[in-house]
C-alpha cells in the first residue's frame, strides 16, 4: 500500500507516490553520488515498466511506501517493508535521491513522520533496519526517532578500496521521543 500524506516541518512531507516519482527513483538509483551506500547501481527498471512497479507496490499487502517531498518537490522515498503482521514488525528504509539536498535534515524529518505513523496508526510493535555504518547521517536520523544499535554486520559492502560494516538498528513505540510527536498525533484537536 501507499502511505497517506503527513505534513512535517521545514517544508518536508510524506505523501503517496505517483507514477512520475517512480520514474525519478529509478533514475536516482543509477547515480554514483546516491549509490555510495545503496547498490548495486544497475537495474532491470525501465521507464516502460515503471507503471508495473508502481502498481505492484500500490497493491502490496506487506509494505507501506511514501514519497518524500521537500518544498513541494519529490526528493526521495521511505517506507516499511517485509511486514510481519503476526509479529507486527517490519524493515524500514529511506532513500534521498536528490544528493544536492543532503545535510538539510530531510531524512530526520521523514523518519520522524514515518515512525509516528507506524506507531500511532498501524499499532506496530517493532521496526528494524540495516544501514551502512559509514552513513552516519542516515543512522543518526533514525536514532533521533528512537532507533538504537543492536549489532554490526562486518564487511557488508566494498567501495573504493574499503569494506563497510553495517549498523543494525531497531525501534519500539516506547523508544519514540514523546516530545517529537508530530501533528496530528501531538494535538488531535488541531490537526496540521
Amino acid at each position, binding site marked *: 500500500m501507499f502511505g497517506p500524506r503527513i505534513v512535517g516541518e521545514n517544508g518536508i512531507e510524506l505523501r503517496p507516490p505517483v507514477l512520475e516519482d517512480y520514474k525519478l527513483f529509478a533514475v536516482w538509483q543509477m547515480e554514483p553520488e546516491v549509490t555510495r551506500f545503496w*547498490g*548495486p547501481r544497475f537495474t532491470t527498471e525501465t521507464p516502460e515498466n515503471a507503471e508495473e512497479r508502481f502498481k505492484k507496490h500500490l497493491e502490496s499487502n506487506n509494505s507501506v511506501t511514501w514519497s518524500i517531498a521537500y518544498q513541494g518537490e519529490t526528493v526521495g522515498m521511505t517506507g516499511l517493508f517485509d511486514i510481519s503482521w503476526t509479529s507486527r*514488525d517490519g524493515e524500514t528504509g529511506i532513500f534521498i535521491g536528490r544528493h544536492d539536498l543532503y545535510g538539510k535534515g530531510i531524512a530526520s524529518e521523514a523518519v520522524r513522520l514515518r515512525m509516528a505513523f507506524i506507531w500511532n496508526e498501524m499499532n506496530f*510493535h517493532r521496526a528494524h533496519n540495516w544501514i551502512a555504518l559509514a552513513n552516519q547521517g542516515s543512522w543518526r536520523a533514525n536514532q533521533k526517532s528512537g532507533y538504537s544499535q*543492536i549489532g*554490526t554486520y562486518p*564487511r557488508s*559492502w566494498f567501495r573504493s578500496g574499503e569494506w563497510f560494516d553495517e549498523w*543494525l538498528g*531497531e525501534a519500539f513505540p516506547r523508544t519514540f521521543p514523546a516530545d517529537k510527536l508530530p501533528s496530528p498525533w501531538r494535538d488531535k484537536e488541531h490537526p496540521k
Partner: protein
Amino acid sequence: MALGGIIRGKRTTLRTPVEEDLAAYSRWMADLRVRRAAGVWHEPAMPATWKERLKEQAKEQRVVLWSIEADGRLIGLARARLGSLEGPPAAYLQHFILDPEEWRKGYGWDAALALHRYFFDYLDLKRSGFELRADNVAGLRIAEKLGYTEFGRGHEVHYREGAYVDEVWLVMQREPWDERFGKTEREYVPFGTAR
C-alpha cells in the same frame, strides 16, 4: 536451476527435492513445533500449490533448496541463498527444517556440517550467515559448534505462544571452518599427482 544436488553427510544426505517430498513439507509447515523453532518456508497449502512453489523454486537463480534424508527417509529441508554481489561471496541459510519426529537424533548436526562443507570446501565461499530464535537451543548449539558468532540481536522479534522472543543474527567466517574442519571435511580426496 536452484534445486540442490547431492551432499553426503555421515548419517544424512541432502538431495534434489522431488514432488513426492511436498506432502511432508506441507505437514512440517503446519506443525506448531516447527513454527515455534523457526520461520516456515511457505504456509501449509493444497498439493497443487506446493507443486507450483517447487516449480518456482527451480527457477530461482541464487536460492537453492535441498531435501534431507536419513536412512532413505525424508527428514527435512534446507534452503540457502548463495553468492553475494557487494559483499564477500557468502551463503545465507534461510531455512533449515527437520521433521520434529526426527529431532534429538543428531541429524541436524550431521546435515548442517555437510551443507557447510559444500559452502566452504566446494563453493569456496568466504562466510555464511543465518538467524535463529534466541530460545532455539539446539540450533544455537549446532551454530556454535560450526563456528558461528553472534553479530546482532533483535529484541522481541517473533510473536508466538502469547509472547515475543528475540532473534539472534549469526555469521561464520571462512577461518573457523578451515581451523575446525578444513583438514577433515573434504568433498573429495586430494587429486595428488594425478592432476
